[in-house]
């Protein structure tokens, strides 16, 4: 009995072991299925996917796709999220501002933004500006809503302190409301970033394009399954890296929250 307790105690102290073990066993089952030839031809094993990915990297094709995709995703994110944060914070501190946007926001938010792509394409065509516009619109909403709720949730006592001290409205906005809303705003930014990657792929699938989404479509049409999975892996890696960078920046900005303040990742 006493022999069995020690490993359990270790697991409790290092739960990431369980995480890794779970992921590894899924991969192992997948790989085993592939090795035994039990999977359909259009599902490659993990080893083959990695091999195909390295092959693509060596030929320089992957990077040629990643760069235009990242440019679109990050431009759209930067435009949409920054407008969202600014308008969200303003709406949070100003009731007329909030009421101005409220109805419009409530009606436009539920629209899947990809549904707007054909309409945008009538004017802009299936071009980069059209894709960036769609990504920006999609990235706007999580940034706007979270910044708004962040500003609405600011402890009114903090604002009263600012008024007591005689700080101007602008100073209270910049030095009280903005930092106090930051934790919630950062949550919105992270959702916006993820949405930007989703919309990046979605907009690239349609029309004549380059980038990772277009690569997926080409690979599908040519039944190049290795290329397809390499593309999916590349999208995943880009998303994880972008999220990690944003998380790192936000941890720095929110270091005052202390340990555990940023919540579950």
């Amino acid at each position: 009995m006493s022999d069995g307790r020690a490993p359990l105690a270790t697991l409790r102290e290092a739960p990431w072991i369980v995480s890794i073990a779970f992921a590894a066993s899924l991969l192992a089952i997948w790989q085993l299925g592939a090795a035994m030839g039990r999977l359909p031809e259009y599902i490659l094993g993990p080893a083959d996917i990695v091999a195909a990915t390295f092959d693509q990297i060596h030929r320089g094709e992957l990077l040629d796709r990643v760069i235009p995709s990242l440019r679109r995703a990050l431009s759209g994110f930067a435009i949409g999220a920054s407008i969202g944060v600014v308008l969200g914070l303003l709406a949070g501190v100003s009731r007329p501002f909030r009421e101005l946007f409220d109805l419009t926001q409530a009606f436009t938010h539920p629209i899947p933004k990809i549904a707007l792509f054909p309409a945008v394409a009538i004017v802009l065509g299936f071009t980069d500006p059209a894709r960036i516009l769609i990504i920006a619109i999609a990235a706007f909403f999580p940034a706007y809503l979270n910044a708004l709720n962040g500003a609405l949730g600011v402890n009114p006592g903090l604002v009263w302190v600012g008024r007591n001290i005689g700080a101007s409205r602008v100073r209270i906005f910049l030095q009280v409301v903005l930092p106090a809303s930051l934790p919630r705003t950062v949550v919105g930014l992270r959702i916006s970033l993820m949405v930007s990657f989703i919309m990046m792929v979605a907009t690239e699938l349609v029309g004549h394009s380059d980038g990772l989404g277009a690569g997926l479509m080409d690979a599908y049409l040519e039944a190049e399954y290795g290329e397809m999975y390499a593309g999916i892996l590349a999208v995943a890696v880009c998303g994880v890296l972008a999220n990690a960078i944003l998380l790192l920046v936000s941890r720095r900005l929110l270091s005052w929250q202390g340990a555990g303040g940023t919540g579950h990742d």
Partner: protein
Amino acid sequence: MNDGRRAEPGAGGAPVEPGSNLIRLRDVSKTFQRDDHVVHALDALDLCVGRGEFVTVLGPSGCGKTTLLHLVGGFELPTAGTVSVDGCEVMGPGRDRGMVFQEATLFPWRTTRSNVAWPMEVEGVGRREARRRADRLLARVGLRGFENAYPSELSGGMRQRAALARTLAMEPSVLLMDEPFGALDAQTREAMQEELMRLWQASGLTVMFVTHDISEAVFLGDRVVVMGVSPGRIVEDRRIDLPRPRTAQTRTDPRVLEYRAHLWELLARHRAASDPEPERVP
């Protein structure tokens, strides 16, 4: 020093109040619209507080004692009547009236030093000078060595000390304290009361201190203003003849017990007389 206030008609900005009253509330009423009915938070209230006086405001929840403080602070304006400080009518918040809130409202993203330095930076004091003065204020409230700590790293009592230091950084002439020790444990609360006495004694500040703790009201106040509910009004204004300076020894004075018994009985009578209404919070 005149921010948020307006000279009374004919006063020309100079103090014209007779005697040495610094704070004066005349026939002050405050009503709030809540859903479909009107709440009378304060009704035709008159109160004067002398320069350098320490007045505690005691009352049950819903008696409007916090509203009273907000009116003097200028965070709310009266529905009727006038509130004046140093002869000028209160029209809004101002640095001459420093507010210390129930919860220590420190900025969690600033260190203790940076919190205390902020009011001086807003005023235009240079960053280095503001920090130097902040350190001095922190030493005064017993927080030497915690200059670089964030509020989340401080205990409740330490946070209130830091909040007090930040309020003192405005160099107010009036200190408005809204149950500042209400969330602290009994021992810390007594220690904080004694320290507040020591600080106030050396400062010459005029203090209005709201509490629902009878012992606290008696221990701190030159006067205890007792309020009753529905509508909020003053039911007694009692002078507390305990020697100054007040220290831990003051608590054992037999007169403390007498005052407490009297006030307890008074509050119990007024509590029974009417249903309490919810206290308005900012």
